[in-house]
């Protein structure tokens, strides 16, 4: 059962491609690592950026047909399923350091 935003995204990716569960989760994990993101503290905007900028290339490398459209479909699905899972709060280190410097 999907519990975190990462789980939801990996599940949708698995459903939208020929990848099995392990491959879908592994591919997403690699993209998140490449993006410098923590699996446990993902937010919807962060996931969107990953699906827009990194996942098309990752899926292309794995032979998934029409990767950009697949990413868009997965992201649309996630946005509606996980609207309450957005964890971008004033408590993230990026937000704190942004505030502290007055930018």
């Amino acid at each position: 059962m999907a519990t975190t935003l990462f789980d939801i995204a990996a599940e949708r990716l698995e459903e939208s491609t020929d990848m099995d569960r392990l491959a879908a989760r592994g591919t997403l994990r690699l993209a998140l690592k490449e993006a410098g993101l923590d699996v446990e503290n993902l937010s919807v905007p962060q996931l969107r950026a990953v699906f827009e900028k990194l996942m098309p290339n990752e899926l292309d490398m794995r032979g998934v047909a029409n990767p950009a459209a697949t990413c868009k479909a997965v992201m649309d699905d996630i946005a509606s399923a996980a609207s309450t899972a957005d964890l971008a709060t004033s408590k993230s280190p990026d937000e704190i350091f942004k505030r502290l410097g007055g930018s």
Partner: protein
Amino acid sequence: MDESAYLTSIVAGTFLLIAGARLLRLHRRTRERPELLLGLYFALSGAYYLGYNTPSLLQFDAWPPLIELAIEWTYILGVFPYLFFIRSVFRRRDAWAGWLVAACSALASVGTLKMTLDGNVEYSLDDPWFVAQWIGYTAPCFWLSWEALLYQRSSAKRARIGLCPPIVANRYLLITLFGSFQVLACLADLSYANEVGSDQSVSLITDRLLGGAEIASIVVLWLAFFPPRFYTNWITRRAVILPTPMDG
């Protein structure tokens, strides 16, 4: 000590007070804890630097022991919010971080408490209480530097896909440097304790190490918390942000 070393400390203390006041003002507006904790640390450190160097600046022999102890406690009291800042920003969910905060707080407090009970501030490497205090206030500097370095590496990746403003990614680097310069200053404290404890005069190397670390700390804090426009523009211009394949 060399006169320029005192002046450096006075400048550092004044800057820390200003930075602390700015963060505390920010806290009044946002009601968020990190700015309160870091603001308290900077303000108390600034007060310590100024208090500690006032006798040399005003050319009197030394503070009475009671005031010296109060000045010492001012710095140690600043270490607590510093530790809580690091934990609350970087390691909110890690139980070990709580233990590290407790251990550092205990070491810093116990060492200073022993000085208080003895009735005077004494720096000597032969004194295990001084060493305990030193570990208590040095470990947080190293810890901050390490955590900021880890975040600098991941934030540089986030910046590439537009998830972290380049100036914020750079701020992690500046805080890494700040922590490292503070560790250097703490190492200079050891050298100072060694020389003073063995009745030698403070060497030029210790003076320069301390002064250099303080000035370098101020420069990186200035860039981190009061970034001039030219610096912000320079960092932003250098940043490389990946295009979105879908846009094409």
